[in-house]
């Protein structure tokens, strides 16, 4: 029998929800063990090797300390394919909502004063691609089961994962929802990667962008629209930033300058 590919599931700063999303594939979990040899699974195993040589590494969470950074570099060295797994790893997550404002140290001091850190030296939350080469990504907060399994299957067979490059609005319309933007709500559906099946707008709750910013997001037009609807610029930008992380800094720096 062909040797099973090895898998490591690592987690840094985040809620561990992406790792739990793997466990949540209950029906298929046993099947997963048939096709992969899981060497590391921080959230689910007690006998983890620290950082193992694996064919595929799924990395959850943002990098918030120097210790994590060193570990990430080691994971990179020992992994065949390194996958940014979920929103925090991809864009920094909500802990990176203020990325690019240059006030991290000020905020840090306000919370921790002059506390001395010796084991793990804190740093501003950043997505993993800021430090190491990322080969693939799986979006989501947490990733949806079908999307994650599709990506894992593609990776196991040596392919690049495909993701849903359409906005939340597509799936929102599949569910026959009235457009919340037209209803005067601050909805980020058009700016946000789909794949979630639009649960929030389906419960009349505007999208806050947790899957991450879609390639073609038109923040300029949406900002203008929302301002016309009476929202304040700072409130809109703040909403853009919640899950925008590094991507909003890269994509719409100009827009942030109006803050």
């Amino acid at each position, binding site marked *: 029998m062909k040797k099973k590919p090895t898998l490591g599931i690592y987690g840094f700063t985040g809620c561990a929800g992406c790792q739990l999303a793997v466990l949540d594939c209950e029906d298929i979990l046993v099947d997963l063990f048939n096709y992969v040899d899981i060497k590391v699974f921080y959230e689910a195993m007690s006998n983890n090797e620290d950082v193992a040589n694996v064919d595929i590494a799924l990395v959850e969470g943002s990098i918030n300390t120097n210790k994590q950074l060193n570990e990430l570099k080691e994971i990179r060295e020992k992994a065949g394919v390194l996958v940014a797994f979920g929103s925090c790893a991809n864009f920094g997550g909500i802990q990176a909502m203020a990325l690019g404002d240059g006030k991290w140290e000020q905020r840090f001091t306000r919370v921790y004063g002059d506390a001395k850190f010796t084991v793990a030296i804190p740093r501003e939350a950043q997505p993993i691609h800021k430090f190491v080469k990322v080969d693939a990504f799986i979006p989501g907060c947490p990733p949806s089961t079908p999307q994650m399994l599709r990506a894992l299957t593609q990776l196991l067979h040596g392919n690049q994962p495909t993701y849903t490059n359409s906005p939340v609005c597509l799936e929102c*319309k599949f569910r026959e929802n009235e457009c919340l933007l*037209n209803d005067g709500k601050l909805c980020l559906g058009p700016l946000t990667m789909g794949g979630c099946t639009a649960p929030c707008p389906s419960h009349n709750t505007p999208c806050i962008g947790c899957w991450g910013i879609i390639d073609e997001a038109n923040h300029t037009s949406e900002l203008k*629209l929302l301002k016309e609807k009476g929202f304040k610029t700072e409130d809109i930008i703040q909403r853009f930033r919640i899950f925008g992380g590094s991507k909003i800094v890269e994509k719409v720096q100009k827009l942030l300058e109006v803050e």
Partner: protein
Amino acid sequence: MRALKLSKKDEIKLYDVLKEFGEVWAPVPKGSKYVYGKIEKKEDLVIHEECILPIIPVKKFLMPPDFTMLKFTPSKYSIPEEDIPTTVVVGVPACDIHAVNILDKFYTTDYVDNYYMKRRERLIIIGKSGTPRENCFCHKSNTSIVEEGYDLFFFDLGDYYLVWVGSEKGDDIVRKGADIFSEEVPKDVSKKFVEFRRNRNKSYINDVDLEGVTDLMELMYDAPFWDEFGEKCLSCGQCTMVCPTCTCFNVIDDLALSGETGERRRYWDSCMFKDYSLVAGQHNFRESKAERLKLWYTHKLKAFIGHFGSPSCVGCGRCIETCPVDINVVTVVEKMKG
């Protein structure tokens, strides 16, 4: 074709007649809009005075947004056995029936799409002419009257409905409901019908001028206003989802972990999305949003005529109601006409 009378006092009995033929679906409220929902009680089958244009039109019965086409193994494939119920959809406005006629042509000309056909054969359409809504412009797109594509069609003539029978299935329904569908239409029916139509034609609010737009699409193809729309467009794809004649889809294979078995899925796609026109080698035929908008409006107002003899815009006005940034037939035509 023949016409019968259904008294409004017997309207409540309609559901029991229809449910003999299949599931009964009709517009049901959802927020401030309507969607086609399954009717379970006779009181919930409401025939509205005005035209009701549910968020997603009749196409949802004919081509589900996301479904499994086939399952496969390395040696064979099988099409899943589907138990598709016969569906009676009630209250469909004329424009949306025109749209179904267009879908029929699209899915059955040259190549018959069996996924469509097996649903189409099980769909019974009961149309209803209502008061036009604010955005309706079927009077301008020549789709305010429908002569085929329905099984029954209702006109509200005061204390009764004039019911046109448009198919054998429709005939079966009126025979089954012989105690409510009466052959004895009042003597002044023609007068009332003409009056109804006249009043209806007078009640349109949207007066978009579609005259000559087919030619203008060609002449204005490189006009700068397309770039302005492109800059505004959110690429949300809602216009294509709510459009009753949009048919585009994507097909993907979802493999099981083994990499050997799997299923092929088909789901609604939108030409407003970047990946829609992306091909091998990362070439994109329509890189900019302006180009994609031009494609859509060309398709709706012009290109379909060459293939099927009529434009594929049926004047329902859903794009007007839905686009968050006001890119729609009215604003595009206004720009074209200066």
